């Protein structure tokens, strides 16, 4: 057969692509379960980290079981909140935050996770936004005064290593603890400021030197995402 003929070339390409597509489809199907399980564990781990739990995960032999255990122990409730701040039924854990944030504000159903920390309750809110190079996301937990930040955890898709990527580091995240999101009754979230550009107070944290754009993106993300919950905060405060 003439290997340089057009028919041969086209047929060869077609057959090759079909075979490869089949192989990849089978592999993707077979590996789906463990992959989804990994993502679920990672999400639970992030939620727990935002309230300072599951800190020993690196010393555990069976990480998955440990995370599941801690999650079952501390996260007592998960629900959705509508635009009026009212609890709604739904699968809070599997909400696609990215898709929800794209919807008009009135139609959003956003998840809230509740942690029972030896009698104290913390409320955990997922946040998501755009960093310098790609998506950034995280979880921020508030005390039940809906003002004081208890903890925060952030992650990113592809911020600059050593600079913007440091938002995923403990040094940056632990600054958030104890900050306030309301200044004299006005919602401000927690601002991330450039080193030394403003007086450090209860409403801001230091950004990362050399990672100013990513740091600012974190501040914007907190403001944008937490403001969706303002009605919820009001409703809860009235109930308290």
């Amino acid at each position, binding site marked *: 057969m003439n*290997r340089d003929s057009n028919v041969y070339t086209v047929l060869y390409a077609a057959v090759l692509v079909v075979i490869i597509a089949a192989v*990849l489809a089978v592999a993707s199907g077979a590996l789906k379960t463990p*992959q989804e399980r990994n993502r679920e564990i990672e999400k639970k781990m992030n939620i727990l980290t935002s309230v300072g739990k599951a800190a020993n995960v690196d010393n555990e032999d069976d990480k998955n079981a440990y995370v599941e255990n801690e999650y079952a122990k501390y996260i007592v409730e998960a629900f959705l909140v509508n635009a009026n701040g009212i609890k709604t039924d739904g699968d809070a854990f599997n909400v696609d935050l990215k898709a929800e944030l794209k919807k008009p504000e009135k139609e959003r159903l956003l998840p809230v996770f509740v942690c029972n920390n030896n009698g104290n309750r913390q409320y955990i809110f997922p946040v998501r936004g755009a960093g310098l190079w790609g998506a950034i996301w995280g979880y921020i937990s508030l005390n039940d005064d809906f003002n004081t930040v208890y903890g925060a955890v952030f992650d990113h898709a592809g911020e600059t290593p050593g600079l913007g990527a440091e938002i995923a580091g403990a040094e940056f995240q632990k600054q958030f603890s104890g900050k306030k999101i309301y200044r004299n009754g006005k919602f401000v979230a927690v601002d991330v400021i450039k080193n030394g550009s403003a007086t450090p107070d209860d409403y801001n944290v230091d950004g990362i030197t050399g990672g100013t754009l990513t740091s600012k993106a974190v501040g914007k993300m907190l403001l944008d995402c937490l403001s969706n919950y303002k009605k919820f905060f009001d409703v809860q405060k009235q109930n308290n």
Partner: protein
Amino acid sequence: MSQKEPLFSEKNIKLFTDPFNNSNPVTVLVLGICSALAVTVKLQPAIVMGLSVTVVTGFASYIISLLRNTIPNRIRIIVQLVVVASLVILVDQILKAYVYEVSKQLSVFVGLIITNCIIMGRIEAFALGNKPLPSLIDGLGNGAAYGMILVIVAFFRELLGSGTLFGFRIVPESFYVKAGGFYENNGMMVLPPAALILLGVIIWVHRSINKKLVEK
């Protein structure tokens, strides 16, 4: 050549060992530098990257060599790319399923194995003109030699940049200035330029041991 060659014939062994010295893809041919800079901050991702590249180069060379008499010449490069890309997707999926943490650290660099010049280089230079078994050995050897350089670079970067190896603390906490000691991690080691400098040093050492490599 009709006689069957034993697996561990001198020629085959040389195919595997040569990349570690005389024809090292990184230090002699200076290929695959991009990922050598990116994934060598810590040892663990460097080893996983080395293994992934070894698997991909080995099997890509083997598969292309099997197909070498059927591939239409005009779409030769595309066929090679399709085979390499599918292998890389497979590796990526497997990493995501079984070593999720590491796959997160490697992030885009697993996908970028496709663009690693070593793979296409070995296919073009060797697998297209040789039998499957020698091609497999050649691919594995080159991948492993690339991995070896990654591990050497990562060893120094993790030790000097973070004071750890495989995440275990080597430099005691009490040595650090923070804890009242005298020691600071070298911050430059965690940045890509350090890998470039280390690679330069490795090439220098390699050439001073192996005089054959020195250009006249």
